[in-house]
């Protein structure tokens, strides 16, 4: 009986360790998909196997085990590498066109359609 309990506890410990590890690496994947690999054009850190990206993934892993949340990790990297490292651009005077242009195009398209329909 005692042996059974011991074996079960060991299995449980191994299982829970694996689970937390898996959860962590999922988190790393999730964060690194939102980061631009700065030295490889057109790839995310997640996709890249460059030295830069590999180190970045280790760093993210470390930050997560230090208990940092996503926002803190992004902010840290932004302070080191600038806004460019994240794929999601913030709204500022350089990116306002990027955010507003699709809206303008949408409204413009809607006007065209309404006109066409009402003419008929």
């Amino acid at each position: 009986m005692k042996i059974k309990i011991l074996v079960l506890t060991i299995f449980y410990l191994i299982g829970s360790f694996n689970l937390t590890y898996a959860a962590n690496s999922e988190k790393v994947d999730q964060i690194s998909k939102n980061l631009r690999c700065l030295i490889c054009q057109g790839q995310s850190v997640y996709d890249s196997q460059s030295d830069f990206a590999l180190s970045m993934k280790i760093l993210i892993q470390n930050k997560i085990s230090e208990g940092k949340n996503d926002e803190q990790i992004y902010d840290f990297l932004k302070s080191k590498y600038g806004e460019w490292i994240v794929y999601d651009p913030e709204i500022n005077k350089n990116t306002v066109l990027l955010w507003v242009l699709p809206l303008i195009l949408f409204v413009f398209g809607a006007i065209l359609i309404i006109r066409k329909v009402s003419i008929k």
Partner: protein
Amino acid sequence: MVKNIKLIAVVFLLIVSFFILLKGLNKTNNYSPKLNSSKIDFNFKAKFLYSDEESTLYELINDKDFSIINIWASWCLPCREEHSFLLNLKSLEKFNIIGINYKDNEINAKKFIKELGNPYSKIIVDPSGVNSIELGAYGVPETILINNNSKTILKKYIGPLDDKKLAELKMIIENEN
């Protein structure tokens, strides 16, 4: 009338996108970051190449007015090219040159230093590359000029040093003094 509006709209869009793309052409492809904060916060511990002791980078940048942090590796060819510039900088005796050995084999790193000379006052190793990321580095070689008194980054060079960058470095520290 409707046809006219469409034509004007298309021409207008074409003109706008032409100018946007034209502006894009003049931008350099080489991205260098605008630093939000040039304050340094290097509180990571790292091992020295020539001993088993550990230190934080913060403790290393205090003897002179300026420090140069150079990230290098023995497998990196441009590092070999820029080595003579580092030796030149060392001979000025104005800086504390700290080497960060990036993702390297320690034996090869020591061979590299033995062959080309040692411009560094201290070399720390960064086998996983994480410390370099904390410094905001892209890869090797990379050189960072630091004002030791204010603990701020004055200048960052991505890629090997050359005559032009060396002259600029010297100018910067003359202006700071």
